[in-house]
């Protein structure tokens, strides 16, 4: 593999981490007042925090921010904590931030990756068929429908879906990840409950993104069909199916696959809005909770976790990409 290519991607990954950590370092310092102290006093005034915890909190906070120390020293200390995955503790119930993240992330990853993969597969197949001249017209009547859906913001579709399928015609649950009465363990009841709760949030994402994949694939497929190797494949007397799949789709897919990888990578950043609207207990909802309750440690923890995982995922994808496109090293050389 081309050393220059790997080196460039790795530097990008490092830079993303530095940016992420630095943003997080700056965020609480953006305000003149000390947000945490403010928030703690506010809670104490409402009697929301017991005093013992609050003192411990202030201690943690002072150690962490070390506001009496010079800025560069604070910055270095901050890096120290991050490297040890010490993101501090939540304000609400004083659990380590990393535990909260680890509890929420699987829900987000599970629901969104299934939704993304479904949308990708359906959209790509649709797009390829749309561009293929021998596809029957019955496929083409779906085009305006798909295009309309892809133009709608997913969270607005989510709202309409909740009203339609959970309130007006209550066949699906409105919110949460599983039913109240169900115990979170491996059982058929639990699995069914998880699925029924995921249908709407996942569905709103699938419906609004099929068009994106479909139109992208259609464009690439049209380009691909103009290529000389498609003509030669026909002169070779290959079967229609093989020309379509191994020559057409296989090549037109390449940018789609990059897109899929990026989408899967961005999953952790997730669809905050969808999770909030459906009260789905994922990372997005956790972030929203952190914002609503001014929980800085939690906010920072989520940000770092998400940005670093995302950067890492994209780095891995970049390294794997030459496997699906053997020309990648060459192109890199030319660009």
């Amino acid at each position: 593999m081309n050393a220059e290519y790997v080196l460039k991607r790795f530097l990008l990954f490092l830079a993303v981490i530095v940016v992420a950590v630095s943003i997080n370092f700056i965020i609480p310092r953006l305000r003149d007042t000390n947000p945490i102290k403010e928030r703690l006093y506010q809670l104490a005034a409402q009697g929301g925090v017991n005093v013992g915890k609050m003192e411990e909190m202030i201690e943690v906070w002072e150690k962490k921010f070390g506001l009496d120390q010079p800025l560069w020293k604070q910055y270095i200390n901050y890096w120290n904590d991050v490297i040890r995955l010490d993101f501090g503790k939540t304000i609400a119930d004083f659990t380590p931030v990393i535990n909260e993240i680890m509890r929420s992330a699987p829900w987000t990853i599970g629901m969104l990756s299934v939704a993304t993969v479904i949308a990708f597969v359906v959209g790509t197949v649709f797009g390829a068929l749309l561009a293929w001249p021998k596809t029957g017209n019955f496929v083409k009547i779906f085009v305006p429908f798909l295009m309309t859906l892809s133009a709608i913001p997913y969270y607005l579709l989510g709202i309409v879906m909740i009203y339609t399928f959970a309130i007006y015609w209550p066949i699906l649950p409105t919110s949460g990840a599983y039913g109240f009465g169900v115990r979170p363990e491996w059982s058929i009841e639990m699995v069914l409950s998880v699925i029924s709760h995921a249908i709407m949030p996942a569905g709103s994402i699938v419906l609004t993104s099929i068009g994106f994949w479909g139109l992208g694939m259609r464009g690439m497929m049209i380009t691909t069909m103009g290529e000389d190797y498609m003509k030669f494949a026909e002169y070779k007397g290959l079967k229609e199916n093989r020309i379509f799949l191994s020559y057409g789709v296989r090549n037109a897919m390449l940018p789609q696959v990059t897109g899929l990888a990026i989408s899967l990578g961005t999953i952790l950043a997730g669809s905050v809005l969808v999770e909030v609207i459906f009260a789905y207990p994922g990372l997005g909802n956790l972030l929203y909770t952190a914002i609503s309750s001014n929980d800085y440690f939690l906010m920072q923890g989520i940000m770092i976790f998400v940005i670093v995982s995302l950067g890492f995922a994209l780095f891995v994808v970049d390294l794997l990409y030459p496997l699906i496109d053997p020309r990648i090293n060459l192109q890199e050389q030319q660009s």
Partner: protein
Amino acid sequence: MTNFALSVENLKVYYHTSGGPVKAVEGVSFNLSKGEKLGLVGESGSGKSTIALALMRSHKPPAIIEEGSINLGQTNLLDLSEENMRKTRLSGISMIPQGAMNSLNPVARIRKQVVDALSDHSFKFKKAERETFLRELMESVELDPKVLNLFPHELSGGMKQRVCIAISISLKPQVIIADEPTSALDVIVQRQVIETLSKVQEELGAACVLIGHDMGLMAQFADKIGIMYAGKLVEIGSVNDIFKNPTHPYTRLLIESLPDTKGKRPLIGIPGLPPSLLNLAPGCSFCLRIEKENRKEIPWVEISKDHFIQKCDICSDYGKVKTKK
């Protein structure tokens, strides 16, 4: 009629556009015996590539074959079902494509691209047999069998084109069509490719149609040359007849405009532009180029054995005196 490997009769291919039919190929006929090499020459837009597509029945709408027949041995290709035509491609008639640089699937190894063609024509090999077959195929076009394991971007232009030749002959077709197979290649590589093509064609005993605009290449390769002009075949004859006794005024001007290295002389171009093929009226289209007119049906005249021209009364002497050396 009939021990011709390929016989094309009165072929007409029109592109149906909103402005009316574009008569890309207008009544072209020629015959090719087994092992014979025809060079089909013409400037861009003369219909030579459309003929290639029609021979493979790979023309796409709005192009439609209006009339004529394409006989491969005893079978008229235009009568075959889609599926039978597909099977005939490569096994009966094969085409070496124009864009050598991009004619191979960039994400598949060469081996797969050869094997795909074999398996879609129901060739079943044992693994060892298959490898022997592939190795011999590669050697027949002077390529190292290791090439089979490479991707197209790892090959040079000439190697890619030789891979295309190898694929095209893999099922031993009776007819090979080569549509400007060397258009993007350097002179030496072009020579390698054309000589490879000659060699495999001779070994197979297949008839071959080489399409191009380079008369030099035709002189090196072909036994017989056909000159296309504005959708029509205006002259056809043996390579010697065409070069020594060009009779149609277009052919004559074409031959005279060719630069060579046998002594310096003024270069003479062909005046005017070819006529638009959209709604082209019947009659002599070369007359239009030199601002004359002949709307009559132009007869097909045999001026010596196997040397035919479309003989127009008005323009046939055009340029004869003026360009005489």
